[in-house]
């Protein structure tokens, strides 16, 4: 088609998504949507296939396509102008019940020509635990309101009965109502702008541009795949729940212009809510694939076509109803994200042309801590600690991972200020800082994670409760690449210190600098609902990014700099990087370093292997 008109229409389609995202954030006004950017807006073709994916939480792009398709299957001819459908059943398309999809058909001249879809993580979904993550839910039935598709808006008018029924089942219905309004408004903007585009250029032309756009993305990805070497790469992710271990195993095989993700060998579905459904796994592998392989390609159906997924039925990555899945997004889906990122990183690293795109795994373990209780203003506070969006970057082929640089599947998140969080929750931060030695060692170091300490402050009920879930604290998950070590694992410690000190003013009690200084019994936790009362402290440390290459190849000057900036300890500099640094961190000893490095390399060769 005419490349000029195509260029203009493509640009506009991207802007339409952008404008819809702005609308979503404006109307919603919630912290998770605005700070965490835990949202997604995309445009879909009339048949529900992905047309233009926006920059949001990327594992939703393909499953919202499935939501559109499921709606078409369910409602057939009864899909009318101005309708909006709600869908959040993970066994139909969604990821977990609290990520609600609103999908809206776009009609032109009476004909269905496109869909818009969006999601936000709603304030509450009426599940067992506030906020939606339910570590101990035995099945989907206890994970709150769920619908495989219901008409929320008919011909532009909200169906009061439907909306009220849904709101009747959740905590803080006003907040959820706002989430729903934001998604309706977002779809409206997408529709208006899409129709304006069609008005200007005509349906035929826009349709041709859309077809071309999808065809082009497919051709571009296939061409890129052909440039990459043929081979197969394996990766593995562990999840630990209460001492039980679950695995997501991946063999990724690339031949010619096809890429197959085979999850055979993954654990059978778990009795815990870490499972994910098939559509969630597919979304989970695409979340890193879009930015790693398609950074210069429009994210749409064309990118989906060359990809195949094998996910054994009844496994943790393709669970069978009614297995619980509410923790999926920070459970098996994120494991799929990580496994795919690790395998794609290896494939890129095998290519001269694309090695500079290779990255170790970023922020592999969300620590979704949901706080709930009464706050210092007398109101109810339910909310995620947005630090969970502030993961750390994996090391790259040419540079270190970015300290607290975020994550790949949700590239543009941010965390809230301490001063914001101390206003919302009756909490006081003891510290929030980078964690020394948390980034995976390597020639390029993984980005550092952080550590925080929280204690109740001015809480009318003496404190709060919180839900902690995810993938546990036993395993590091941000795998390294080409020899780089994985980033350090998460750690959650409940420090029980209920014998309250007197007024902490003018004393250092209550102002401990580190977890080691905290008085009280320390219990490692990672799963369940816990109190944070009196002078209790919740300590959370989160994973660093994976490293890249051999740590003994890291420039000694750079390791010295790492020690000065607190990224690496002097001990680790010596024992892992082999760089011998004086106590004042003023210099390293070149000859001692050379000797140390030689010894460390030799120690990697067990006696029986040495020739």
């Amino acid at each position, binding site marked *: 088609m005419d490349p000029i008109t195509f260029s203009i229409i493509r640009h506009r389609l991207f802007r339409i998504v952008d404008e819809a995202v702005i609308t979503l954030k404006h109307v919603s006004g919630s912290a998770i949507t605005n700070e965490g950017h835990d949202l997604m807006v995309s445009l879909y073709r009339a048949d529900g296939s992905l047309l233009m994916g926006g920059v949001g939480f990327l594992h939703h792009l393909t499953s919202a396509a499935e939501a559109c398709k499921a709606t078409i299957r369910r409602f057939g001819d009864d899909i009318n102008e101005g309708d909006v459908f709600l869908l959040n059943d993970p066994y139909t398309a969604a990821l977990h019940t609290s990520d609600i999809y609103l999908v809206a058909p776009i009609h032109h001249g009476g004909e269905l020509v496109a869909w818009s879809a969006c999601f936000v993580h709603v304030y509450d979904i009426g599940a067992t635990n506030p906020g939606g993550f339910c570590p101990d839910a035995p099945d989907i039935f206890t994970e709150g309101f769920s619908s495989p598709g219901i008409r929320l808006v008919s011909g532009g008018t909200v169906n009061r009965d439907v909306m009220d029924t849904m709101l009747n089942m959740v905590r803080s219905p006003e907040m959820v109502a706002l989430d729903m309004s934001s998604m309706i408004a977002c779809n409206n903007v997408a529709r208006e702008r899409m129709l304006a585009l069609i008005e200007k250029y005509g349906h035929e032309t826009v349709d041709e541009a859309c077809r071309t756009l999808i065809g082009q993305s497919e051709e571009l990805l296939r061409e890129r795949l052909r440039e990459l070497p043929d081979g197969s790469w394996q990766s*593995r992710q562990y999840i630990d729940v209460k001492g039980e271990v679950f695995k997501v195993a991946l063999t990724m095989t690339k031949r010619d212009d096809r890429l197959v993700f085979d999850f055979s060998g993954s654990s059978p579905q778990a009795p815990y809510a870490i499972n994910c459904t098939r559509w969630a796994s597919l979304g989970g592998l695409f979340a890193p694939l879009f930015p790693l392989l398609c950074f210069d390609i429009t994210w749409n159906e064309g990118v989906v076509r060359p990809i195949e997924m094998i996910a054994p039925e009844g496994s943790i990555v393709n669970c069978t109803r009614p297995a619980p899945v509410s923790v999926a997004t920070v459970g098996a889906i994120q494991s799929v994200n990580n496994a795919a990122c690790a395998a794609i990183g290896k494939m890129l690293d095998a290519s001269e042309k694309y090695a500079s795109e290779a990255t170790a795994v970023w922020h592999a373990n969300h620590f979704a801590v949901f706080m709930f209780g009464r706050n210092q203003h007398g109101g109810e506070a339910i909310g995620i600690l947005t630090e969970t969006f502030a993961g750390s970057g994996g090391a790259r082929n040419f540079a270190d991972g970015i300290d607290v640089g975020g994550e790949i599947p949700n590239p543009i998140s941010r965390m809230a200020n301490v001063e914001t969080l101390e206003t919302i929750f009756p909490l006081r931060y003891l510290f929030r800082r980078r964690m020394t030695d948390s980034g995976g060692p390597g020639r390029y170091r993984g980005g550092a994670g952080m550590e925080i300490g929280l204690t109740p402050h001015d809480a009318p009920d003496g404190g709060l409760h919180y839900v902690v879930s995810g993938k546990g604290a036993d*395993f590091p998950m941000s795998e390294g690449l080409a*020899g780089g*070590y994985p980033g350090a*694992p998460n750690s959650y410690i409940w420090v029980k210190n209920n014998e309250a000190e007197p007024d902490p003013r003018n004393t250092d009690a209550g102002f401990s600098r580190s977890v080691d200084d905290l008085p009280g019994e320390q219990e490692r936790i990672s799963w369940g609902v816990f109190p944070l009362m009196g002078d209790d402290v919740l300590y959370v440390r989160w994973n660093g990014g994976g490293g890249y290459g*051999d740590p003994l190849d890291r420039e000694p000057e750079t390791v010295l700099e790492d020690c000065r900036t607190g990224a690496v300890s002097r001990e680790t500099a010596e024992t*892992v990087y082999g760089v011998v640094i004086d106590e004042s961190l003023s210099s390293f000893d070149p000859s001692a370093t050379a000797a140390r490095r030689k010894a460390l390399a030799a120690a990697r060769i*067990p006696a029986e292997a040495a*020739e």
Partner: protein
Amino acid sequence: MSRRFSTTLEIEAGEICCRKCGHALGPAGAPWKRHAAMTEIPMRGAAGVPYSGGERVVLRRFACPACGALLDSETALPEDPFLDDVLFD
């Protein structure tokens, strides 16, 4: 003509080789890790205080048996197989 396998390995004359010293690690097209020098160290404390995970978790390090260059590493439970990467011909 050599062909890249990763930043630490390459394929030379049908064999997978250490990029640092050229030591061969078996034929191209087959898993190479059993030809490498493998050390398994506890993940706990592997690289500083924050490496605080489960007791049974290990860091497998695959090194060149000739020069000691670190070629690859992986997180594992001892009973789990190696992660195998293969480039097809």
